[in-house]
Structure formats: structure tokens, C-alpha cells
């Protein structure tokens, strides 16, 4: 089976033999792939019963967790990477969870559907309706996406939280990238991927 667009790219960002926490791990596809292809260990956090069963069937360590309760069961720096794919927009307090990710992990990897994509913009601008696309398939009243953002929004939040962007990629739902995406990522990128870490604490030098 082909790996989902963003998952394939993420697995290239993760070093072999690392310890990974996957927030909202779904059916465990990413962790199973990382385990088989890159000897990665770790855990998936998931709340959906069927997904938990899928993870157990795949042999992925899965912990029933409500991400809105934070990551208090995990110690500081206990993972090489904390990954959250296409879930940040469903979280009640995404800013707090982002900080939690970078407390628990040395690096964070976040992917989300870009609400600044031109189709979303034109849907609102010309159609006057909330956008529906492959990346955002649900109607406004039934969507779990309560905190959608654009690339600019996300990067602004990172700046506010003293989070350093180590790497960024934008792709479409088929994992392709193009010159237009590279030129205007916030307009043409459907899915945004970020690799992050907390900015090292600046030493205050005496004047």
C-alpha cells in the first residue's frame, strides 16, 4: 500500500533508530512504516476505538489518549521526534500542545491542511462558502477541524512561541511539489509540513 502523501515525506525526515511519539497516530501506518523501514521505536496516541484496534493488529504500541488533556504522562526530552500529522487543526488548544510536543520531544514534526490554498481562498471569495476539498472533506457543521490555519498563521505562532522552523515543505495531496508551490507556498501548497524545535535559550550577556 502506498504511504499517505505527508507520511512518506515525514519518514524521510526521521533518522534511523530514533524514538518517536505519534500524536493522533490513526491506524498506525506511519509508525509501522518507520519501524519496518527505519528501525524506529515509539508509541502512537489515539482516541478512536477502531484505530486502536488497527494499531494493535499492526503491532504498533498504541496508548489510548485524549490529546486535549496534554502530554503529562511523558517526561521532558523523552523522544527524538514528536509527530502530529493532520491533527493540529482538531485540537482545542493547539498552541499549548505545540509547546508540549517540544517539551517531550527534541524535535517536532507537524503537518496540516493549508487553509491559505488558492482553492480555499477562492471558495470563500467567489463562492462565499466554506471550502471543501480532498484535504478538507467535511462540511462546516460536521468538521472536527476547529483551528484551521494558513502557513503564515502557523509561522507567526511559532515565532510567538519561540519555536524554530528547521525545515518546511508544501505538497499537494499526491505528494507532488511544483515551482508554483515553491514560489507561493501559502497559495499553492495544499498540505504543509514543518520540522520544528524550541529555540535554544538565549544567554543574556552583561552590558
Amino acid at each position, binding site marked *: 500500500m502506498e504511504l499517505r502523501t505527508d507520511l512518506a515525506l515525514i519518514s524521510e525526515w526521521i533518522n534511523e533508530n530514533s524514538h518517536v511519539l505519534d500524536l493522533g497516530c490513526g491506524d498506525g501506518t506511519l509508525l509501522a512504516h518507520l519501524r519496518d523501514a527505519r528501525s524506529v521505536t515509539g508509541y502512537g496516541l489515539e482516541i478512536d476505538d477502531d484505530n486502536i*484496534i488497527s*494499531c*494493535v*493488529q499492526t*503491532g*504498533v504500541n*498504541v496508548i*489510548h489518549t485524549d490529546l486535549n488533556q496534554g502530554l503529562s*504522562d511523558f*517526561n521532558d526530552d523523552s523522544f527524538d521526534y514528536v509527530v502530529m500529522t493532520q491533527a493540529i487543526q482538531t485540537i482545542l488548544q493547539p498552541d499549548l500542545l505545540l509547546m508540549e510536543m517540544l517539551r517531550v520531544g527534541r524535535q517536532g514534526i507537524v503537518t496540516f491542511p493549508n487553509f491559505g490554498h488558492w482553492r480555499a481562498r477562492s471558495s470563500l471569495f467567489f463562492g462565499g462558502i466554506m471550502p471543501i476539498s480532498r484535504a478538507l472533506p467535511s462540511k462546516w457543521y460536521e468538521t472536527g477541524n476547529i483551528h484551521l490555519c494558513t502557513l503564515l498563521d502557523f509561522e507567526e505562532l511559532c515565532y510567538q512561541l519561540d519555536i524554530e522552523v528547521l525545515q518546511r515543505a508544501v505538497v499537494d495531496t499526491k505528494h507532488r511539489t511544483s515551482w508554483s508551490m515553491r514560489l507561493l507556498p501559502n497559495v499553492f501548497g495544499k498540505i504543509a509540513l514543518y520540522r520544528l524545535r524550541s529555540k535554544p535559550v538565549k544567554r543574556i550577556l552583561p552590558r
Partner: protein
Amino acid sequence: MPDILPPDCVGLVTSQTYRFDKTPLSLDCGRSLSSYELVYETYGTLNKDHSNAILICHALSSDHHAAGYYNMQDKKPGWWETCIGPGKPIDTNRFFVVCPNNLGGCKGSTGPTSINPDTNKPYGPDFPIVTVRDWVKSQARLGDMLGISQWLAVIGGSLGGMQALQWAIDYPKHLRYCVIIAAAPKLTAQNIAFNEVARQAILSDPDFHKGHYYQHNTIPEQGLMLARMLGHITYLSDVAMREKFGRELREGKLNFGFDVEFQVESYLRYQGRSFADRFDANTYLLMTKALDYFDPALEHDNNLSDALAKVMAKFLVISFTSDWRFSSARSREIVKALLDNKKNVSYAEVTSHDGHDAFLMPIPHFIQVFKSYMQNTE
């Protein structure tokens, strides 16, 4: 018992008894048992390299009869019929399952009702207080006797889950998987308080005779009944009791007296009485003490993560949302200690209204998680 045995039942079973008298079993309390018997049942077939054996540890008031029927007239199957049998989570087509009755029990293993060889009288209250660690040690000897040097899995619910956890700590190399269901890493003050009320009910029964009731040809029936009634309330949830009984009256009207009026009273009294008929009061006292004493973190400065640092098994931990006796938060303590040590663990919190007793029920998500996990064991 059904007229025809269902295909997913282990069928008719018999128990076996083995006497251990070569090496005395030294106990946590400082005493030792020079000779003791364990009664156990097995289901399924041990494979050639003895690598498919599963140990089932039982809870407070259950025993070695975990699955199947003794004869075609039996009204009820073993206590974990929902999970043990062909095609069930503990699949007897694949696994060889061993379930012993714990030491101190009253269903065939040496306990307070057994004859003390030193006095030729029943042990009664003189039977040493055994701990979860003592049980695990005695189970390890049973494994040796059966030629099982490593269990594929040790599995238990409630107090049984505590034994499974103790197994992983005490004999890390002797099990590959550890399944802990509806358990806790130690009791809370509230848990101990419930046990204490249960014990006081028994101890204050005039028929208890300081535990020597066998000699007086009586049993502390009222005390044991009360203890069980109290216990039973803590095994159910508010919702489950409401659904089952509501405020239903037995005779449809209030009688303005203290006889049984509400269905729930009738149910509790029935449960209490039938328990008093089949269970020994001294054993009940012992088992509740074993629960109270269980605390593997104690010798590690109360740090459970340290206590679990050397475990090698892969873990599955399961809890139930309406279990207030051992709530999900208690299971998460075990999970957290395993996460701290980067051990392999999966955890499922199963939505259920059945309270603590949920681990005995055929709840689809529970059964599916459990079954999927066991299918992946190797």
C-alpha cells in the same frame, strides 16, 4: 449449561492437583510452607517446544475454574468463559492455558480450610498471610513442574492483573507478554477502607469464633454475606445498578418495613448468601490482605518506574471507563511507569457501564483489542 456445548467453549474440564513438598516455600511474612498443594486447570495443548503456555491469574473471589463445564448438568461455565476458548482472545486452539487456585484459597489449593500437618486440624486463622509475591513464586514452581520455562503470556484481571505485573517484575525472563486488565499498581486508602469494612463484617460475626468456626460447626454467614454485598456494590457502577434494578419494588408496593422491598436489596442479599455458601471467610480475609499489601513500588522509594525498570515483557493494559474500584487513572499509572522505561506497551480504555466487573463481560471493543493483541503474540 447449554444442551450442546458451543463450538467456542473448551468443553468439559477436570482439575488436577499437585503437591509441592521438596523445597519449603518461604513467604513474605517470614513463615514458610513445607508442603502445599495447588489445584489447577489446563485448556488446550502444550506444544513441542513448550512455547505456547499462558498463565491465568485469578481475582479476589474466583478460582482455577476459568473456562468450560465440569459436567453437562453444570449451570455456569468457568469465570472467564468470555475470553478463554477456541477462537476467543485466549484461543485454546493455539495456546495451552493454565489457571491455578491461589495459595490460601478455598477451592482446593492449600489454605485455611486445609489440615495443618503440625496440628492435624484445619489451619483456620493460623494460615500465614500470603502476598501477591508469594502467589507468583508458587505459580513459578507450578510452571517448573509443568515444564514451562517461559510463559508466552501471564494474564489477569483485577487482583489477577496485579499478579501478572508482579510476574513481570520478579521473573522478567520468564514471560514474553503481560496482560493487565482492570488493575492498579497498589490500592488507594479508599480501596483499603472498603476491604477493612468487609473484614470487620466477618470478624465481628459471633459465628466467626476468631477464625476457628470449623470446630464449632458453623460459618460466619452473616459477616461473609455483608462483606460480599459491600464488595459487589464496588464492582458495579451507578449506571449499571440503575439499569439493572432502578427503584423497582419486588411486590410492587412499599410495605413500610425492613424486609426486602427493592429489587436491588433482593439481588445483593442473594449474591451475599450464595457467596457465603461457596466461599471461606478466612480465605476472604487473606485475599483482601494480599490486595492491601500489594505495592511493588514500595521497595523502590515508591517509584513505580524504578520498580518496572527491569521488566522485559511486552504489555497490554486495559481499563474500563465506569470502573471506580480500579479506575482508568490507576491503569495509566502502570502505563506511565512503562513509558518512562521505554517498554513496549499498548493501552486501551474501554467504554463500558459495567463497572469493575466489565473485565468478565463480552464487551465487543474489549474482546477485539484483547483478541487482536493475542493474535500478534509470538
